[in-house]
């Protein structure tokens, strides 16, 4: 009898394995609600975008986007778990379900949007890649960097942009690629590389926060690429995709119509502007269409303020980064921030 039993047992095990369906991710929204926490993937440390202080409190533009979504979805902006990620880890973390949303100054490109199993929800910062060089090198233009070594962090679009720029202008730039941003900037500050390259906002952050003396370094005028930075969510839950997308649009539209962190409560009760009434949920219940309650946008605004406030608080003129609104101003003020209407 023994002779026949064993293969049957093994056969059963094998059949069970074959029949097992590949694990499907549960719906992201359900998972977030059940967990009571939004898991947000952020940068390991980029001043103005996502940075933790000594107490472990995160701040930054990318961080506030996650807070706003947590406020809208869970009713509490503090219910966010932060997962710091390197550039190379970020997409895998999102694909594998380790994080719900990736808000880590990530450039929206076709390859990423179409082939990585994720959706970008919009642009929260319009950026472009630039170069930073020491003042004493007396370089005025990136085109003078012929044959120079350039420090760069791996796992970003920057390497490719730099190569394109180098080819077009026959510069023969030599990249020295580091996995960690600290190692890359460290090598630049030590003088190993003639220049460091990344998005202009990142350069400002590095120049003003990391350099011993910011005036020793200058950001060259050329921007060599378009870098629309924005958060991304995993495919497979259109509901969450819509919520995340419309919270960001809501933050932008709130600025356009003058809703701020301070006045949102008052405006909600007093304003007769139909747009404000829709955003605050006084007239149409826009939240219901997204599977939320009608106060969703009010909560988000109370938590972090509108897009303009987020910008000024984290990277604006009064911060060490001192970035101008520029392309990130509202569409009616000469910028590119244009949110589809909430209605």
């Amino acid at each position, binding site marked *: 009898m023994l002779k026949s039993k064993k293969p049957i047992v093994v056969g059963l095990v094998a059949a069970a394995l074959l029949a097992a369906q590949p694990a499907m991710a549960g719906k992201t929204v359900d998972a977030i609600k059940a967990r009571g926490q939004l898991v947000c993937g952020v940068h390991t440390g980029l001043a103005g975008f996502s940075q933790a202080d000594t107490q472990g409190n995160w701040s930054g533009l990318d961080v506030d986007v996650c807070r706003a979504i947590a406020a809208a979805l869970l009713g509490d902006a503090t219910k966010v778990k932060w997962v710091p990620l390197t550039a190379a880890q970020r997409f895998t973390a999102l694909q594998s379900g380790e994080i719900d949303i990736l808000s880590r100054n990530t450039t929206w490109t076709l390859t990423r949007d179409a082939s990585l199993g994720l959706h970008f929800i919009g642009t929260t910062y319009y950026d472009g890649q630039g170069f930073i060089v020491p003042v004493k090198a007396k370089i005025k233009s990136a085109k003078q960097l012929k044959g120079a070594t350039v420090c760069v962090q791996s796992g970003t679009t920057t390497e*490719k942009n730099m190569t394109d720029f180098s080819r077009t202008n026959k510069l023969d730039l030599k990249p020295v*690629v580091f996995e960690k941003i600290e190692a890359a900037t460290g090598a630049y500050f030590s003088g190993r590389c003639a220049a460091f390259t990344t998005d202009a906002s990142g350069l400002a952050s590095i120049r003003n926060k990391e350099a011993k003396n910011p005036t020793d370094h200058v950001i060259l005028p050329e921007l060599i690429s378009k870098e629309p930075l924005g958060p991304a969510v995993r495919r497979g839950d259109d509901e969450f995709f819509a919520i995340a997308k419309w919270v960001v649009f809501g933050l932008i539209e709130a600025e356009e119509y003058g809703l701020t962190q301070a006045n949102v409560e008052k405006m909600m009760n007093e304003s007769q502007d139909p747009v404000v009434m829709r955003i605050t949920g006084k007239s149409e219940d826009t939240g219901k269409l997204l599977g939320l309650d009608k106060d969703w946008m009010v909560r988000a605004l109370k938590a972090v303020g509108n897009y303009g406030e987020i910008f000024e608080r984290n990277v604006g003129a009064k911060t060490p980064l001192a970035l101008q609104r520029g392309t990130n101003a509202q569409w009616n003020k000469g910028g590119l921030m244009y949110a589809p209407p909430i209605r």
Partner: protein
Amino acid sequence: MTHRPPPKRRDWSWRSQAFRGLVYQLLAVAVIGVALWFLAHNTLENMRARGIQSGFGFLAQPAGFDIGEGLIHYDALDPYWKAFLVGILNTLRVAVVGIVLATVLGTLLGIGRFSRNAILRSLCYAYVEVFRNIPVLLQLLMWYLLFTDVLPPLAEAVNVGGLFYLSKGGFSFPTPAWGVGLAFVAAGAVLGVAVALAYRRWVLRQFEATGRVRSLFWVPLAIVLAGAFVGWIAAGAPREWSIPAPGTFTMEGGASATPEFLGVLIGLVLYTAAFIAEVVRAGIQSVAHGQVEASGSLGISRGLTMRLVILPQALRVIIPPITSQYLNLTKNSSLAVAIGYPDVVSVANTALNNTGRAVECIAIIMLVYLTTSLSTAAFMNWYNRRAAIRER
């Protein structure tokens, strides 16, 4: 007369141990196969369900990024597989040079621990204890820091006679600019090696016949050098050298080893040499002390005793553990990514991010290290068999 059982026929019943063994082995193979298939199938299904594109097709597409240094010509428009090849060659370059240097240094240190000179002995001991107890990543960072922070900038490079330069740009040295002449020199040297090998055989035969000892180092070396010299003359005695000189951003002329390469190489060599020194010491101690005494009573000098009596016997004990040190060095070279050396891991990281093919890129890295390690192990096993005692 003992009673012999009749020769057994193959017994295909469950009572036969051989049959049961066969069944168990087949089952084990089947279970492993199913498990692997399940993993692969599940991964592919999951990736498909989440809209992640997969496959190795991207290898044929243009990579679009530059690589800082490499042994072969590479252009950003070359396909991904060529970018990977550049990375693999960079890994091998560190591994091969590192293994050779670590072996030489480690052997000297190991022998040094038996020196009669107390200072030399203690120095070797201190070296081993310091270098093998500091994590290798820290050592790499330390050497890199030394190159980039302590050394002067390019314009003020330390130089020896205007020929060798040491700066934040790395170590630059002159190279012969002989064109085809270099091939003649190489051909001459190869011819020299062949003649030297023939000479070695003749010396060994002479030794067996007459007992006369001839140098097996200086004369063959002279033969090889003479071969190279003849090749140089044949090429028309070219004398141009490419001399490095500081340019605006890089050294122009000559050749340079970048701080990244030197940081990885020096870090790995010094770290691994400490372990090799211990392996060599263990090997030497495994040779019975009577051998040294016997050799001494025959009037053989200490140096010759080490070379002719102890080391050949110690080698048998040394080779297997030293093989794992070689494998460690090769695998540790993947830490190079921390200090910006474009090894295969660094290139794969960039490729992974540009294409999003995480599973494929990690698989390539694993395959590269597996192949390198298995080849090293195969070579060392062959050498081990050669060095083993031939039992007659």
